[in-house]
């Protein structure tokens, strides 16, 4: 594993290994989905619910390991049930920190129990918690692709309705949007996205892909569609660069999760600092104000 400064050569070298190909493919798919869903997580302020669903997924994954099936099925069953429960409690539920936190701790405890009961390979818990992207198999890549395409297709279909319902709840309700159904649908999409992302980044680091890129994107652009694009690009960059570095740096002994999360974190910090310094302002299109602005029609000032 020799690193040269010719990145293309390096990449060709890395691409020879099947486990790296799988890791890149799965990572790319997951970054796409996480980047898009993440924007709505930020918009709907459901970050803690996202975090909690990851933990719910942990007990699901551990239960699956105990039963001898692929953890991803356990993840899906548990996160979708959890998401459905939260959605049925109403949108306000996703901001009920105390209740969610209480359930979260219990789910984590269940996961610990399942892992203890399982007498086999102890690394299963570790890879659920922190992700094990280079252990992803061909079949898992295909499964991830299928689930993610489904999520993306639904997302494209409901994009504007979900945006409306997330941004402007009361007006959307009055306009006849099915708020409960949309909330439910979003939570299910979130659950599937989390289940896919856990394979790459693990339960505890889910934030780095599901929230950090979108939280950064909203500081850079005020347009929803552009923000989604920036969020996806950031997630993709973090995954690609993280995998690349973990392969070459320090003899490949450090986990990819660490590098992926660190890159996302570093980008976030840079953007927030730039935002505080006022450097991001150049990105925002503002209409130049030529003269003191008077609304059309009679001057409202005259009433004073």
């Amino acid at each position, binding site marked *: 594993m020799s690193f040269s400064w010719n990145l293309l050569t390096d990449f060709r070298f890395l691409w020879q290994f099947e486990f790296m190909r799988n890791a890149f493919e799965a990572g790319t798919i997951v970054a796409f989905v996480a980047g898009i869903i993440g924007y709505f997580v930020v918009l709907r302020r459901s970050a803690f619910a996202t975090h909690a669903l990851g933990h719910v997924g942990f007990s699901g994954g551990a239960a699956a390991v105990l039963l001898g099936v692929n953890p991803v099925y356990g993840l899906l069953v548990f996160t979708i049930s959890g998401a459905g429960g939260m959605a049925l409690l109403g949108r306000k539920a996703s901001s009920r920190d105390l209740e969610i936190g209480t359930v979260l701790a219990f789910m984590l405890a269940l996961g610990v129990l399942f892992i203890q009961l399982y007498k086999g390979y102890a690394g299963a818990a570790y890879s659920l918690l922190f992700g094990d992207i280079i252990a992803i198999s061909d079949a898992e890549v295909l499964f991830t692709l299928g689930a993610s395409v489904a999520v993306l297709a639904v997302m494209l279909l409901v994009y504007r309705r979900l945006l409306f319902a997330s941004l402007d709840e*009361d007006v959307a309700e009055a306009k006849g949007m099915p708020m409960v159904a949309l909330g439910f649908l979003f939570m299910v999409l979130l659950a599937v996205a989390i289940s896919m992302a856990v394979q790459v980044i693990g339960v505890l680091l889910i934030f780095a892909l599901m929230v950090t890129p979108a939280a950064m994107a909203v500081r850079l652009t005020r347009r929803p569609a552009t923000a989604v694009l920036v969020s996806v690009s950031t997630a993709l960059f973090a995954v690609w660069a993280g995998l690349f570095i973990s392969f070459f740096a320090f003899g490949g002994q450090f986990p990819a999760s660490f590098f992926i999360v660190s890159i996302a974190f570093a980008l976030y910090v840079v953007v927030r600092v730039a935002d505080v310094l006022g450097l991001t302002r150049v990105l925002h299109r503002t209409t130049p104000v030529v003269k003191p602005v008077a609304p059309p*029609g009679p001057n409202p000032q005259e009433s004073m």
Partner: protein
Amino acid sequence: MGYPDKVVWRDATFEVEQGEFVAVIGPNGAGKTTLFRMLLGLRRPQGGSLAVFGGSPHRGNSRIGYVPQRHTIDHETHIECESLVRMGVSGTRWGPGFSLREEREAARASLEAVGASELAHECLGTLSGGELQRIFLAEALVGNPEMLLLDEPLSNLDLRRSRELVDLVDRLTRSRRVTTLLVAHDINPLIQCLDKVIYMANGRVATGAPENVLTSKSLTALYGVPVEVLRDSRNNLVIVGGEESRGAEAE
């Protein structure tokens, strides 16, 4: 009319004609927002009947533009105004529709109508209360509604901004022949423009032209206790008695 365990008001009869500017006035809990929710088809009256445009109210009526009291938009909302206004026309559509020119142009025309073109690319989270209300008005207007329901648009505005917003609403009401219902605590910023007042208090409703409703006699009958309506030198109304003291208005 009311909730299962509480009747908010009863025996109310009123009609609003097309193109009228109507204020819905009353203390907190008088049922002003509930009236709007019934007009929008989000809630049914417990008794009696309510007709909007000659039919029963239904959710998703595109002839109504609604500006609720917002709780979800604050300084953490990093979205430009134009994108919110676009939701008024595109928010109920299927598909991604990332850059439909028709939607953008409708949003821009609406922003221009409320004199907020210069705010199109500003972040919602950084706007003042008066600017935000103009943006919300643009969002409500974007589908060319025939009726506007404005819930407490003046509640966070000082007197000067209140008057500016009322003038804007009045101009839009007259020029577009829209029927406008505006909920407010205080009648004074509105009184010059109104065609009708719906005054709610004590579980009862008085309605009619402002000069008929806003009298000591009519409000005394409404509240059931002596109420006096006084005018200052600039024709501002002061209502003494009833629940119309400042304390009763505080949120």
